[in-house]
């Protein structure tokens, strides 16, 4: 194997693949990055039996070949290289990298022990890459991080012909986003649970091309795979084999009152007041006509803060508590100038959604985003 490649091109591809390397590989070869040259194409791959990543880059090669090198070391080296073309040559059991005046020689790992990457399942449909990244980011923020509850660490992905619905919950909030896409065949219907962190990571980094192709296999139980491919990059992830909550029944369809919040000003106020909210203590939101007063802290040995913010609110005065992180996560995800917050009561879920100007009747629009937050029961 022998090739020359632009430094930026190589470092982007290696860095992208290295992100999905397992921090504690179950077998040593899984800590490796597989380099494969065929003609003018280099593929840079990683795999840990759950997630695979493969980036393709153009190179000028004089010799095809395959080699497996320690992934993190390769990533660190490539990132640090000077801005010159990089020459890579396999020399027996070592890999030589030279760039400008720098020379490296890396040990290689036994490539014959490396598992073969899963092939991409059959194409399900195509989605705009930026829209997909936005939708996934909006939903994955609500996914749980507790691996003992696998159902909650996933993003539910539901396909119903030309509409996709994503949903995730950690029991304290529930985020749901719908968007349109182009299914490969009309009438397609599927529902799978995708590990949230992997999905969010992939969606965010597949925006170099205009579109992302989703491919799906749901073979036997637990054997399902989701493939995502953008320009020059593709990733697969094993699906979670768990039921998801019946989230449509949880999302309230009516509200007793609602507020229209200026997202920027309200977020800034909430962040300031939350500075005194120690871990686990709530942000108290007192809605009165025309304004909301945010408070946190309160007992003698804690700091206290309060700030008023003008909002549109005309229901009965309502005092409701939120975990500040959950509230701020939602505010950061609506992506509109103003957000609408719907309330039933102080102990019932509140629903945050983007407010499209001009004001509408509150019915969820197609393509809408809704972020439900369970309140904190305030003391007393």
């Amino acid at each position: 194997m022998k090739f020359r490649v632009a430094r930026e091109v190589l470092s982007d591809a290696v860095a992208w693949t290295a992100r999905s390397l397992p921090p504690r590989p179950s077998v040593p070869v899984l800590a490796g990055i597989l380099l494969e040259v065929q003609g003018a194409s280099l593929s840079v791959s990683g795999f840990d039996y759950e997630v695979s990543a493969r980036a393709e880059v153009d190179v000028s090669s004089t010799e095809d070949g395959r080699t497996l090198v320690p992934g993190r070391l390769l990533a660190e080296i490539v990132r640090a290289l000077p801005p010159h073309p990089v020459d890579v040559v396999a020399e027996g059991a070592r890999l030589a990298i030279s760039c400008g005046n720098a020379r490296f020689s890396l040990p290689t790992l036994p490539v014959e022990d490396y598992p073969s990457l899963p092939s991409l399942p059959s194409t399900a449909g195509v989605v705009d890459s930026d829209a997909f990244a936005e939708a996934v980011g909006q939903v994955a923020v609500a996914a749980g991080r507790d691996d003992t509850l696998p159902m909650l660490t996933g993003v539910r992905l539901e396909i119903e012909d030309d509409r996709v619905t994503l949903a995730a919950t950690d029991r304290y909030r529930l985020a749901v986003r719908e968007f349109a896409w182009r299914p490969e065949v009309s009438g397609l219907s599927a529902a799978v649970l995708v590990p949230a962190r992997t999905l969010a990571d992939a969606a965010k980094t597949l925006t170099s091309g205009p579109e992302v192709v989703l491919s799906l296999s749901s073979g036997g139980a637990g054997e399902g795979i989701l493939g995502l491919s953008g320009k020059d990059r593709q990733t697969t992830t094993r699906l979670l084999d768990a039921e998801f909550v019946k989230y449509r029944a949880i999302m309230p369809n009516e509200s007793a009152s609602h507020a229209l919040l200026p997202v920027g000003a309200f977020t800034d106020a909430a962040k300031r007041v939350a500075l005194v909210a120690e871990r686990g203590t709530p942000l108290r939101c007192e809605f009165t006509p025309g304004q909301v007063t945010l408070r946190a802290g309160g007992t003698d040995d804690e700091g206290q803060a309060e700030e008023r913010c003008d909002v549109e609110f005309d229901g009965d005065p309502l005092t409701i508590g939120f975990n500040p992180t959950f509230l701020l996560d939602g505010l950061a995800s609506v992506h509109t100038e103003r957000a609408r917050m719907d309330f039933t009561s102080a102990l019932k879920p509140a629903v945050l959604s983007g407010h499209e100007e001009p004001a509408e009747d509150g019915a969820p629009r197609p393509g809408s985003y809704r972020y439900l937050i369970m309140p904190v029961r305030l003391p007393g």
Partner: protein
Amino acid sequence: MERAEGCRVLHVDMDAFFASVEVRRDPSLAGRPVIVGGAGGRGVVTSATYEARAFGVHSAMPTARALRLCPDAVVVPGDMALYSEVSRGVMAVFRSITPLVEPLSVDEAFLEVSGATRRLGDALAVAELVKARVFDEQGITCSVGVAPTKFVAKLASTRSKPDGLLVVRPHEVVGFLHPLPVGALWGVGPRTEEALHAVGLRTVGQLAHAPVELLQQAVGPGSGAHLRELSWGRDPRHVVPDEREKSTGAEETFGRDVDDPRVIHRELLHLSERVAGRLRGAGHQARTVTLKVRFSDFTTITRSRTLPAPSDVGQVLYDTARELFDALALDRVAVRLVGVRAERLADAGATSVQLALGEREHGRRDAELAADRAVARFGAGAVRPATLLRRDGITGRSQAAPRPDRAPRTTRRDDG
């Protein structure tokens, strides 16, 4: 009817505390002069019943002298472990009435009751409840002073001893204080008293009306101003709850070593319910649950877990204790003792609760609070988890399931 308006502080003082506990332990001593103290040549009296006090016996007096004054007195050696246990029980009674309890020693405490009066009636009603519950639960009597301020409450309890109750309403404070000797004021020890006597101030009333310059010359500027305030019944000090109990727990030594996980689970449920009930009674919630297991060879291990949110729910404590136990993966190892302990306590009223999707609105906690009310009304055992019940086939009545081989070794230990 005017009862105790304006009174928010109780001072509760056990009557002849150690001696009363000894009488409780041995009822044949009731009505007799009893001295708790060292019996040897240099022994001193640490406590004496009122029957003994009638002969002039008092604390810190050499026992030999006390016996000369009262030859019929029964002298018993002290049992500090028992007194501490009773003391914890008494303090637990106080804390079940108000979280604002400031213990002064093992046998006296201030209680701030303005919060409790909303539930329990005025301060007089609370004081009567304290006396009744201390007697019912601990079998000893106490005296209670009820007043607008701490130091008047303390003087009032002393005045009402034994087994007394004295309310000093705001407009009665001056009349109550002024006839007292200056030595009764807080902070007036023998030297200050001497200095006040030297300038002719013998009663609180005289002190109250003395020119402030004279007072300050006699005892110094700070002390002078302070005594003057006290002499008019002004005492700005609040009841300061002491360092909260850091933990509360219960454990059970089985009559015979147990290796059946079901039996151990059931005991853990029982202990968890008891600890949770104690937490709720004291208005606390646990942040951490600790499991203790002692094996038949007396090796003892503990395992702790921090809860996602502070809790006083028996089911939550049990689930945690059980998970900790199951994680030990014991393969029918003989267990001698299990214990459940609630640690890193927080005030229940001050904790907020993150609600979760799919929770029932009235959760387990509401059920347990309802059970607490039923127990308060109908007595212990009125309501308990079904696992801890056994149905009596003949009468159909529920009764407590038999605990594994209670006698003779079974010991229970609760502590605060």
